[in-house]
């Protein structure tokens, strides 16, 4: 049996994917879609999946669900999907770059930097418009990442130093965020606190439209750099020997990873562990080659956040939990399990 699916539409164009990738992507897409339907259908009054489908397709049902489905629930689920895709891809890139299966946007400071910037904005300048939040978060994440990169630099960037310094800087950024939360004005702080836990509650079409461009730009860009990510995953010397511009490509990939995580964090707060678990599950499904791994991780991440949000709505209904709590409850033990598995390496 051939291990690869090869696409060669012309002599000068050719692509290769692991044989497992197309069926797995299809299954994941179906599962994600089902989870989205259930999520949209579930709520204060439940809408049957068929009616959700009809409403989405623009067919009016007798009850007239259009407002609930299209205006209230659909954007929230779309935000969950996009945020999951962004965080998962960001994590997959970071894990490839650092050659560490435990790397995660939350661990190397990206999330902390984005959170600090966003909380600063919410607490100190509450009047500022929503769409500036992703930019502020991106700025914060970028500053923190550049700081980490610069501190870790010693004749090249070592993945290990990157992680250790990342953990240190993360603590500092988290501490500063806590200071803001402690001394800020109470109304703004409570806003910031909800945001910090990571939730897609009450997200509207504005949120979808301010997040979507980031993914539309950076996901394809990440895909274009897959082969360089593969090379870097073999170690700097091998990558350089193969003719990859190691430092240049690593910087570019790191920027993509930061942008994806920052935009996601800006929209839904820090939904933890998605960037860790999704790439890991995806690697079990399709192996470590990034042409297949990135899309698989993205879909897995989207599915995780959509399902986590559904669970968060159902568990203590009618009270809704932030979905960040659900991902943390599932993610933390998984992280410990991974640590335990990696203890000998």
């Amino acid at each position, binding site marked *: 049996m051939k291990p690869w699916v090869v696409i060669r539409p012309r002599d000068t*164009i050719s692509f290769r994917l692991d044989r497992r990738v197309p069926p797995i992507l299809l299954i994941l897409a179906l599962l994600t879609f089902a989870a989205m339907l259930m999520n949209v259908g579930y709520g204060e009054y439940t809408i049957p999946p068929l009616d959700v489908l009809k409403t989405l397709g623009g067919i009016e049902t007798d009850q007239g669900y259009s407002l609930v489905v299209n205006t209230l629930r659909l954007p929230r689920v779309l935000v969950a999907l996009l945020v999951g895709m962004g965080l998962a891809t960001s994590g997959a890139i970071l894990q490839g770059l650092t050659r560490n299966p435990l790397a995660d946007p939350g661990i190397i400071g990206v999330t902390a930097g984005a959170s600090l910037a966003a909380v600063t904005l919410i607490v100190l300048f509450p009047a500022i418009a929503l769409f500036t939040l992703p930019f502020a978060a991106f700025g914060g994440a970028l500053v923190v990442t550049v700081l980490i990169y610069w501190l870790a630099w010693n004749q090249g960037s070592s993945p290990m130093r990157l992680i250790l310094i990342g953990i240190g800087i993360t603590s500092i950024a988290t501490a500063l965020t806590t200071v803001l939360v402690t001394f800020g004005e109470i109304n703004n702080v409570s806003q910031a606190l909800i945001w910090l836990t990571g939730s897609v509650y009450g997200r509207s079409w504005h949120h979808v439209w301010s997040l979507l461009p980031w993914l539309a730009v950076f996901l394809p860009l990440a895909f274009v750099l897959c082969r360089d990510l593969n090379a870097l995953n073999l170690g700097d010397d091998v990558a350089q020997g193969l003719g990859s511009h190691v430092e240049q490509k690593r910087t570019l990939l790191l920027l993509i990873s930061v942008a994806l995580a920052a935009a996601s964090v800006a929209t839904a707060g820090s939904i933890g562990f998605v960037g860790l678990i999704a790439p890991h599950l995806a690697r079990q499904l399709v*192996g470590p080659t990034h042409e297949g791994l990135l899309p698989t991780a993205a879909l897995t991440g989207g599915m995780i956040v959509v399902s986590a949000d559904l669970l968060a709505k159902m568990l203590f209904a009618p009270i809704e939990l932030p979905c960040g709590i659900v991902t943390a409850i599932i993610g933390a033990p998984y992280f410990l399990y991974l640590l335990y598995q990696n203890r000998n390496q």
Partner: protein
Amino acid sequence: MNADKTPSNLTTRKLTLAYDGACVISELNLAIPAGQITVLVGANGCGKSTLLRGLARLLKPHSGTVYLDGKSIFKLSTKEVAKHLGILPQGPVAPEGLTVRELVAQGRYPHQGWLQQWSPEDERLTNQALITTDMIDLANRPLENLSGGQRQRAWIAMALAQDTQILLLDEPTTFLDLAHQIEVLDLLYDLNQSQGRTIIMVLHDLNQACRYADYLVAIAAGRIVASGKPDEVMTEEMIRQLFMLECRIVKDPVAGTPMCIPVGRKKSQLKQVETQR
């Protein structure tokens, strides 16, 4: 494969390599004979691995340069260099779950582009590299499930798929048991003989170096102290200079190449046993 290509020439002129300002290789002139096996030997920390990294443009020289067919290796695009020169660093680590075939396929990197990611040529050379290294039956196994020798063969297969005239290897036999050491060295010898590839490697074992090298380069304190055929380079005087070790040189009973027998303090155990009787 590469057998018909004209051999590429690799030379250095006044090459000085330094780590953190500390000079490791100083003003070194070296011409690697094309189509032959060159082995770099010397004591720990003499700069032989650093020199190999320098030759493979992994380390920017402090001054001087490396020439590939007369052109400075740092003025050529790194991808262009990668089509002529492949390097296998010491003890490379593959990500978990990567299969042999996936690893070998990544050797095709310098021949690919954004749109041309898997040409029939890529497929052909990947398969050929798997066959040459006798890895085709293990192609779908993840690397972590292989023995040390098989894993090293997989990495060599990746370097072969890169389809370069020159192949540099940094201690390709470390961490392997004796049988696997010979297996890897024989494979490299075959590649040199049947495909005319230029092979440059660092080896720790002097006797293996003498047996497999056409051209031996002895390095001490960042300078070449001797170079030439193993017969000419391997003398008792030279070993004393390289390793500060007293030794005898005898003829390898199998290959006829020089063989180094260290003297050391513990000797003539036979005599001791005899006198005790």
